[in-house]
C-alpha cells in the first residue's frame, strides 16, 4: 500500500488563478489544500508579501518569508506582468482554462486592463471571478486604504477586546494579532466561491463575486450587533472574556506555573454544577466548604458566587500547573481550557492522533519543516496540504511552455521584456 497514490482532494480538477496578496492568499491556500490547482500569479520579482517577516533564520529574503510560506502552500507559482500587453494576452489564455479567478486589486484595476469579469467570461462562461477587497467594489469607502489593524478597528473587533479597569485603568481597545482580519475576509470569500462552484455543477454558469473584508469583519463579533439592535446596549471590554453590558465574573485564572486557565463558571453555577465542582476540587483536597449542603440552594450559591469563583476556584487553579488543571477539569466534563502559546500545541497527543502536523519538504533547502495541517478530516477526499509555497516563477516553464505551448525561446523573450 505504500505505493498507493493518495486520494484526490474534494476540489481536485479545479483550477484557480490567484492574483492576491495578504488580503486573499489564505483563501487561495484553503482552496489549494482542498485539492484545487491554485496558480499564484505574481508580478516579476515576486509578490510584496514575500517581504513580510518572520524569515527563516532571521535572514530577510523573498524565498525565506515564513509568512509567505505558510499562506501559499499547495499552490503553483508563475510570474506575469499584467501591465504589459503580452502579460494580459497570456493571462486571458490562462483564464480560458480556469474555473476561478481570485483577485484583490483596487476596484477598477482589472477593468482598466480589460480583464474584468465581463471580458473574461466571454471566452469562458463557467468562470467564477471573486474580487476580495477591503471594502467591496462600491460605496464611499471603496478606495480607502486599509490594513489588518484598520479592519479590526472598523469591523468592531477592537471595541470588544481589552482589559478590566483592575488590570489596566482606561486601557485602549485591543486588536488581537495574527492577521485575523484577513482570515475573516478569506473565510467568507471561500464560502462564496464554494457556493458558486456548487451552483455551477448544476447550471454550468459562472458568476462574479464582490466580497468585502470590512463586512466580513463587521459580521464577526458574535452577539454585539444583536445586543445593540434589540436592547440598545453598547458592550464593555473585559479581561480575557466576553464583552458585556454589565460586568461579569472573571474566567481567566493564573495557574501555579504562571500560565492561565480559562474556566467558564459565571452563569453556570447551579446545584448540580456545584456538586461536580466540589468533586473536581476534592480530587486535590481543595473543595473547601463546597460540600456543605447549603450549596444545594441556588440562593446560597448566588450569595457566594464570589467566594466560589474568586477564592475556591482561583486557589484550586493557582495550586496546579495549567495543563494539569485543564485536563483534570475536562476529564470531569468541565468546559475549561489552558491558555497555550502556539508552540505548546506541538506536544499535544490529541493532535498527533489526528495526524494534524504535516512535514513539508523544501527541496531547495534540503530540509523539511513542520506545518499546522487542516481544520477537518474528510472521510472520502482528504483536505491535505500538498506542497510548500512556490518559489518565484517556479512553474513558469511548466505552465507557459508545457501547458500553454510556448517555446523556450518565446519564454526567454518574455523574460527579457519583463513580461514574466
Amino acid at each position, binding site marked *: 500500500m505504500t505505493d498507493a497514490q493518495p486520494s484526490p482532494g*474534494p*476540489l481536485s480538477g479545479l483550477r484557480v488563478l490567484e492574483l492576491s496578496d*495578504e488580503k486573499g492568499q489564505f483563501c487561495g491556500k484553503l482552496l489549494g489544500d*482542498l485539492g484545487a490547482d491554485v496558480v499564484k500569479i505574481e508580478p516579476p520579482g515576486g509578490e510584496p508579501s514575500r517581504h513580510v517577516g518572520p524569515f*527563516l533564520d532571521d535572514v530577510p529574503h523573498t524565498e525565506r518569508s*515564513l*509568512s509567505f*510560506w505558510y499562506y501559499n502552500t499547495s499552490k503553483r507559482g508563475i510570474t506575469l506582468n499584467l501591465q504589459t500587453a503580452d502579460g494580459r494576452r497570456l493571462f486571458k489564455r490562462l483564464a480560458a482554462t480556469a474555473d476561478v479567478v481570485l483577485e484583490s486589486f483596487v476596484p477598477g484595476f482589472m477593468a482598466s486592463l480589460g480583464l474584468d469579469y465581463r471580458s473574461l467570461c466571454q471566452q469562458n462562461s463557467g468562470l467564477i471571478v471573486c474580487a476580495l477587497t477591503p471594502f467591496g467594489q462600491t460605496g464611499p*469607502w471603496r478606495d480607502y486604504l486599509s*490594513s*489588518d489593524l*484598520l479592519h479590526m*478597528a472598523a469591523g468592531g473587533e*477592537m471595541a*470588544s477586546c*481589552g482589559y478590566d479597569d483592575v488590570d489596566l485603568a482606561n*486601557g*485602549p*481597545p*485591543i486588536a488581537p494579532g*495574527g*492577521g*485575523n482580519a484577513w482570515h475573516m475576509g478569506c473565510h467568507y470569500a471561500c464560502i*462564496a466561491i464554494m457556493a458558486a462552484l456548487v451552483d455551477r455543477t448544476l*447550471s454550468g454558469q459562472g458568476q462574479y463575486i464582490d466580497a*468585502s473584508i470590512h*463586512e466580513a469583519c463587521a459580521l*464577526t463579533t*458574535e*452577539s*454585539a450587533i*444583536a*445586543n445593540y*439592535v*434589540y*436592547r440598545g446596549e*453598547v458592550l464593555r471590554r*473585559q*479581561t480575557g*472574556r466576553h464583552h458585556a*453590558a454589565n460586568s461579569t465574573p472573571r474566567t481567566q485564572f493564573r495557574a501555579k506555573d504562571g500560565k*492561565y486557565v*480559562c474556566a467558564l463558571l459565571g*452563569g453556570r453555577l447551579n446545584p448540580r454544577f456545584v456538586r461536580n465542582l466540589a468533586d473536581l476540587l476534592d480530587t486535590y483536597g481543595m473543595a473547601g466548604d463546597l460540600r456543605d449542603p447549603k450549596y444545594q440552594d441556588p440562593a446560597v450559591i448566588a450569595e457566594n458566587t464570589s467566594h466560589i469563583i474568586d477564592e475556591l476556584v482561583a486557589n484550586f487553579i493557582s495550586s496546579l500547573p495549567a495543563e494539569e488543571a485543564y485536563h483534570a477539569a*475536562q476529564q470531569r466534563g468541565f*468546559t475549561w*481550557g*489552558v491558555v497555550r502559546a*502556539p*508552540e505548546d500545541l*506541538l506536544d499535544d497527543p*490529541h*493532535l498527533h*492522533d489526528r495526524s494534524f502536523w504535516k512535514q513539508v519538504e523544501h527541496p531547495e533547502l534540503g530540509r523539511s*519543516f513542520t506545518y499546522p495541517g487542516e*481544520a*477537518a*478530516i*474528510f472521510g472520502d*477526499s482528504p483536505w491535505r496540504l500538498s506542497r510548500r509555497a512556490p518559489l518565484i516563477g517556479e512553474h513558469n516553464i511548466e505552465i507557459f511552455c508545457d501547458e500553454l505551448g510556448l517555446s523556450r525561446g518565446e519564454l526567454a523573450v518574455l523574460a527579457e521584456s519583463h513580461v514574466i
Partner: protein
Amino acid sequence: MTGAASRRSALEKVRVVDFSWVRAGPWATRWLGALGAEVIKIEWPESERGRLPSTTTPQQLEVNLNTSGNFNDTNVNKKSLSLNVRSAKGLEVVKRLIGISDIVIENFSSRVLRNWGLGYEELCRIKPDIVYVSMSGYGHTGRNHHYTTFGPVAQAVSGLTLLSGLPDKPPAGWGWSYMDDTGGMYGAMCALTGLYHRNTTGRGQHIDLSQMVASIPLNGPALLDFTANGRGSRRKGFPPGNRAHWPGTPLISAYRGPTVAPHNAYRTDPGGYNDWCVIVCHNDEEWQRLVEVMGAPSWATSEKFAALAGRLQHQEELDRHIESWSMTLEKYQLTEHCQAAGVRALPVQSAEDRVEHDPQLRHRKMYLPMEHPALGQHLVQNAPFELSRTPARNNSSSPLIGQHTQELVEGLLGYSREELRAGFADGTFWPTSRPRFPYMEEMLR
C-alpha cells in the same frame, strides 16, 4: 444542467437536516439558508441553549423561547421542526427526513449522534450519498475527542487568546466567541465542499471538523517561527498590543504584517469609551503624508521620525505626539482627513457605530429590516459578499420553535393530521409537560 436562467439561488433544492445548537453550528447553517438551501432545524425546547438563556431579548418583551434577538440573527433562513429525537417515534421521523436530504450537520460533542442511533454508517444506510458534517469541539477522532468547548476554550487551547493583549499583562483575549463565528464559517465551508464533491463524484462522506483544531491554522506564521526558527510566543514584548512592535524589545515580527510605526490606536475627541482611531504608516512616504495631514508640526518634521528606524526607536514619543493631535478631531473626521490624503486610518467602531454611523456598511446594505412574529421589525445582518447571479439573501426571520412542524411532518414527510396529533399527545413533537404555544394549537385543529 437545469439552466442558469431558472436558478435563483446557489443551493436551490438542497435540503439540510440541522441538529446544531448554541452558536457555531447555527452560524454555519444560517449561510447555507441565505444561499438558498432549505435548512430544517431539529430542536427540542429543553435543550436549545441558543434560545435560552437570552441576554438579547428587548426590554419590553418577556424572555421566552421565541424572543432572543441573537437567536433571531443567528437562525434566519431556517425552518423549525420540534422533535424528540431520543424517542423511537422521533427517530423514525428524522430518518425519513434524512432519506430525502443532502446534508446532515450538527455541533454536539463527539458521540451524541451515534448514541442516538444516527452514526455515519446509519446515515449512509438511510441516504448513501449523504454529506455529514460534524462540528465537535475536539473532533470525532483523537484521544481527547470527548473534551468539550465553547468559543473561549477553543481560543485558549489553540493559542489564539495569547495573541491578544499587552506585554506583561494577562492575555486580553477575544471579547466574544471568535471561534463560534469562525467555526461556523468552517462548518459552512465543509458542507459546501462536501456538496461540490458529491455533485461531481456521486459520493458523500463524513467531514470531521473540530472547533479547537480549526483555530490552530490561524496561528500559522507564529507556529512556523517556532518550528523553523525555534522562537516561541512567550517572549518579551509579545503580544505588542495594537503595535507592530513593542518599544525596547528586539525587532521581531509580531505576525500581523510589516514591522512599522506608527501602528497604534489613538484617542480622539471627545474622549469617550469608543472614541479611538487607528493609524498605520507602512513606509516613509505614508508617514510624510500623515505629517502633512497633522499640519507639519515641528515635532513631526524632526529628523528622528523621518525614517522607519527612528520611528520604531522613538515609538513612545511618536505615539504621544500623534495622540495629542488625534485628540483634536472626532474619529470620523480624522478618518476622512487621513484617507483623503492617502493615510491609513479608520475609527474604532462599536456595534452602534457600525449600525448607525458607518457610511460604507449603510451603502452596502449590511443591515436590513426583517419582521419577526414575536420580536417585531429589527435589523438583521446580511452577507459580506454579493454573488452576481445567485445572491445570498435573508429570506425569512428565524423560526419560532416548532413553527414548521406541521408543514414538514405532513407536507414534506407525508404523515397524516392524526399522526401529527398523536405525536403531540405522546411527546414526540412537544413535551407533554410543557404548555404549547398558540401556533401549535393552530396546527392541531
